[in-house]
C-alpha cells in the first residue's frame, strides 16, 4: 500500500502519453469496427429490418462455410510450410559467423523490401503455364505437358509462404538466440545425439518463438488479399475475396459486414489458441 501513490503516478503519466494513439485507434479502428457490426445487424440491403439474418445465412450456407474452412486450412498449410523451412534457416543463423548472418538476414528480409504486387506477379511468371518452372522441366524433358501450378492451392501456399517467411523466421532467430549455447554441449556430453538434443532441448526452449512466428504468419497469410486473389485466381475463393465480391460487386453490404465479423472472430479464435499454447509452454520453463 505504501508504494501505491508512486506507482499510480507512473501509470497516469504513461496513460497521458498514450492518449494521442488511443484517440487515433478509437477514431479509425474501433469506430469503423462498431459501424461494421451495426451494418451486419441489418437483414436487408436497404437497412429496414434488424436481426441476425446475415449471420444465420452465413452459418447455414455450405458454400460460405466452405470458403471459411478452406481459408483457415490454407493458413494452417502456409504456417506449416513456413515453420518447416524457417526453422533450419533460424538454426543456421545462430551457428554461422557474423558475415553469413548478415547475408541470411538480408535474404530473410528481402520479401519485405519489394512491393506485394511486384512479388505476386513474379510468382505468376514463375508458376504460369509458360512460366520458369514449366519451361525448365519441359526443356529438361522431365514433363511433356505443362503442370498446372498457378491458380492451385499448391501455388497459393508456395507464394504466401515466401511472402510471410520473415514473420516466421525473425521470431525464431530471436528465440534460438536466447538459448544458452552451453545447453547443447551439456546435452551432448551427457550422451545425447543431435536429434535427442534437438527434440529435448532446442525445440522446447524455442517454443515461444515458434508460437509467435505461427501466430504472425497465420494471421498475415489468410488476410493477404492481393496474393490470394492474383495467385489463387477466379477458381479459388478465399475469405478476403469473398468479402470483396459481396461488398463491391454485389453491393450486399450487410452480408459483407457479417462475413468480416465472422472472419475476425475465427482468426481471433485461432490466434488465442496459439497464445494459450504459448502461455502453457512458458509456464513449463520457457526462457
Amino acid at each position: 500500500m505504501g508504494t501505491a501513490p508512486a506507482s499510480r503516478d507512473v501509470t497516469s503519466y504513461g496513460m497521458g502519453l498514450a492518449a494521442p494513439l488511443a484517440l487515433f485507434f478509437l477514431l479509425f479502428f474501433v469506430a469503423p469496427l462498431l459501424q461494421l457490426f451495426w451494418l451486419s445487424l441489418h437483414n436487408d440491403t436497404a437497412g429496414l429490418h434488424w436481426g441476425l439474418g446475415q449471420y444465420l445465412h452465413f452459418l447455414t450456407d455450405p458454400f460460405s462455410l466452405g470458403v471459411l474452412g478452406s481459408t483457415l486450412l490454407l493458413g494452417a498449410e502456409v504456417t506449416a510450410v513456413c515453420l518447416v523451412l524457417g526453422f533450419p534457416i533460424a538454426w543456421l543463423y545462430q551457428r554461422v559467423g557474423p558475415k553469413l548472418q548478415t547475408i541470411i538476414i538480408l535474404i530473410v528480409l528481402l520479401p519485405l523490401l519489394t512491393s506485394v504486387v511486384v512479388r505476386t506477379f513474379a510468382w505468376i511468371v514463375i508458376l504460369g503455364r509458360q512460366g520458369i518452372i514449366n519451361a525448365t522441366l519441359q526443356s529438361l524433358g522431365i514433363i511433356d505437358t505443362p503442370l498446372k501450378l498457378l491458380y492451385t492451392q499448391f501455388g497459393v501456399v508456395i507464394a504466401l509462404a515466401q511472402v510471410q517467411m520473415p514473420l516466421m523466421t525473425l521470431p525464431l532467430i530471436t528465440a534460438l538466440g536466447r538459448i544458452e549455447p552451453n545447453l547443447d554441449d551439456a546435452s551432448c556430453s551427457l550422451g545425447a545425439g543431435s536429434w535427442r538434443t534437438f527434440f529435448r532441448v532446442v525445440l522446447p526452449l524455442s517454443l515461444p518463438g515458434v508460437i509467435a512466428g505461427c501466430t504472425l504468419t497465420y494471421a498475415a497469410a489468410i488476410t493477404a488479399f492481393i496474393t490470394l486473389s492474383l495467385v489463387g485466381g477466379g477458381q479459388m475463393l478465399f475469405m478476403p475475396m469473398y468479402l470483396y465480391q459481396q461488398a463491391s460487386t454485389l453491393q450486399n453490404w450487410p452480408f459483407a459486414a457479417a462475413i468480416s465479423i465472422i472472419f475476425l472472430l475465427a482468426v481471433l479464435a485461432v490466434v488465442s489458441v496459439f497464445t494459450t499454447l504459448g502461455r502453457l509452454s512458458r509456464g513449463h520453463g520457457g526462457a
Partner: protein
Amino acid sequence: MAETQGGRSLVVDAVTHRYPSGALAVENINLDIKGGEIIALLGPSGCGKTTLLRIIAGFIAQTQGRIIIGDDIVDTLPPNRRAVGIVFQNYALFPHLSISENVAYGLAARGIDKATRQREAQRLLDLVQLPAMGERLPRQLSGGQQQRVALARALAIKPSILLLDEPFAALDKNLRLDMQIEVKRLQRVSGITTLIVTHDQEEALSMADRVAVLSHGKLEQFGTPSDVYDRPQTLFVNTFVGSTNRMPGVVVSADRTAAKVRLDAGAEIIARPAGGALSEGGRVTVCIRPEHLQFVGDETGFAGVVGMSLPLGATVVHEVTTADGSGVKVSQARIGETRALENGAAVRLAPLAPSLANAFPATL
C-alpha cells in the same frame, strides 16, 4: 559407491590447438593423470584452460596430439560417446526440465527405463544433499544448489573422467568454500578422475593432488601443490602461485644446487637455481616469498626502512623499502605478542633458508 569405475587414467599427449582464427590456444601440452587423481588446471584468464578442457571432452578436435582415456585413444569419438562428465561454469542446467529430469537426462539418453532413472536421480540428489528438490525447476534454486545439481547430473552417467570449468567462480566466498569441500568429498567417495579448471591459486592448491600451471597455452609446471609452491620451476609459476618479492641481482658464483647472488638491494645471499643452470655474471631475478623473509639482528642480509605495517589477523605484513629503492613485503606470523615496528625504523632482512630463495635468469 556405484560411481567407482576404479577411476580411469587420462593422458594428454603432446596436444596443440590452433583456432581457425590463427590463435594458438594450447601448445604441446603433456599431462599424465592417474586414475582417481584430482588435478587442477591453473592459469590466468586466456591461457587456454577452457580450450584444453573442451579438447578432452571432445567438443574441439585438437590440431595435433592425442587424448587417451584408460586404454582408449578417444580422438575420433564425439563428446556423447566419451563418457566424460562436465560441470559448466554457469551450470547449464536445462531450464525447462525439473531437477530430477535434469539429473536423469543422461540416463534417458542411454535408454534406461523410467523407474530406474527416477531411483538413480533420487540417489544422486541425496548424495549432493538436495533430497527434496527433485520436483523444482532450476530457476527456483540458489546458485550453490544449482551447482550441486550440475554435479549430480554429471555423475549420473558414471563418467570415467569429471571435468569442471571454473566451477566456483560465480559463488560468493563462503559458499565457494562449502562447494570446494563438497566436490572433494564427492570425488573421494566416487574415486573419479577429476580435472578442475581454475584461475584461483588457493583453490588449486587446496583441492588438487597435483596442479598443472598454464601460461600462454604452455605447461609451465605439473606437480604437487608443494612442488608448485615451494619448488617453482619458472618465474611465472613463482609469481602466479602465491605472492612473492622479486629482487634483481647478479650471479657471483653458481653450481647446480646453489648460487651466490649479489642483490641490487645490497647483500650477497645464497639462492636455489630454480629454472636450470645459471652462468656467472648473469643477471637474475630472485624470488622470496614474504613469509620466507625474516628480520635479523646481525649484519647479514640487506638493509631497509620500514614503511606501512598491515595487521592481517594471524599475520602482519610489513612493507620495507630497500637501498635500491624497491619495496619488499615481509609477512610475520603473530605468535604471542609481536613487537610493533615503528614507521621509518631501519631493519635488516634475510631469507629464512637458502632453499627458500629461488633464482631465475632475468628476462629482458
